[in-house]
């Protein structure tokens, strides 16, 4: 079954607008997905972000008999959210592009570098570090130790940042 979203130019829609609901029960998507999971109504925000790639979207479903259908009110509410969704997706994609650029630059450094999220998850090992760790039989322990040290340093930086902010705020309120 063809999804008519693109040809209809829809970015917010109910499944009744993009599928022929009379033919839907005979389709693969209905029998493999909609029916087994009891989906009774579906509405979505979907935007194309790049030719040839899957779109970005938020799909909302009703699967309880007592839940009312989304109707025009649901469509209207999602239309109000469309600009914010588009802006959020663009921000995410920009952040991903920057992350890829950063990883690329870090890979060109001659020292071993590990990029770590503030919460401690490793984002990226550069090529030099990967080679160093691959050659070491204790690479697992070394990796854990690197993350632990980074977390200690990050905590200290954050603590100092908070102290500086407090000092700034006192300076901005003289005589109080």
């Amino acid at each position: 079954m063809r999804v008519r979203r693109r040809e209809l130019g829809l970015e917010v829609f109910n499944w009744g607008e993009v599928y022929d609901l009379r033919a839907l029960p005979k389709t693969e998507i209905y029998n493999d997905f909609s029916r087994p999971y009891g989906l009774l109504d579906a509405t979505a925000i979907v935007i194309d972000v790049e030719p040839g790639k899957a779109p970005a979207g938020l799909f909302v479903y009703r699967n309880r008999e007592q839940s009312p259908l989304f109707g025009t009110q649901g469509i209207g509410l999602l239309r109000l959210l469309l600009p914010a969704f588009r802006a959020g997706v663009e921000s995410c994609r920009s952040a991903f592009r920057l992350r890829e650029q950063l990883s690329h630059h870090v890979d060109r450094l001659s020292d071993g570098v590990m990029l770590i999220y503030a919460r401690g998850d490793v984002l990226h090992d550069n090529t030099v570090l990967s080679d160093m760790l691959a050659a070491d039989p204790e690479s697992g322990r070394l990796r854990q130790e690197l993350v632990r040290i980074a977390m200690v340093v990050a905590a200290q930086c954050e603590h100092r940042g908070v102290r500086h902010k407090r000092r700034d705020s006192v300076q901005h309120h003289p005589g109080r």
Partner: protein
Amino acid sequence: MKVTLSEADFVRLESAMRTLLSPMAFETIDRWRTASRRAVQAVVQADTAISMLPCDGEPLLECDTDDAQAVAAYAAY
């Protein structure tokens, strides 16, 4: 299209817009996706929701763990 909004609708809409507009306020994109999905779900009072985002290194589809099997079926489609 006429949309009638209650005070509660306004509160939920404002919360969803703030969330959607602030992916950098979350530690990870995944957390932003979860928060956005739940906020939008609340706006239209849906029973469940799925987020789709085509970015390298991120899962295309994101949902609550209860819906993971359904999402796998959708992804297979």
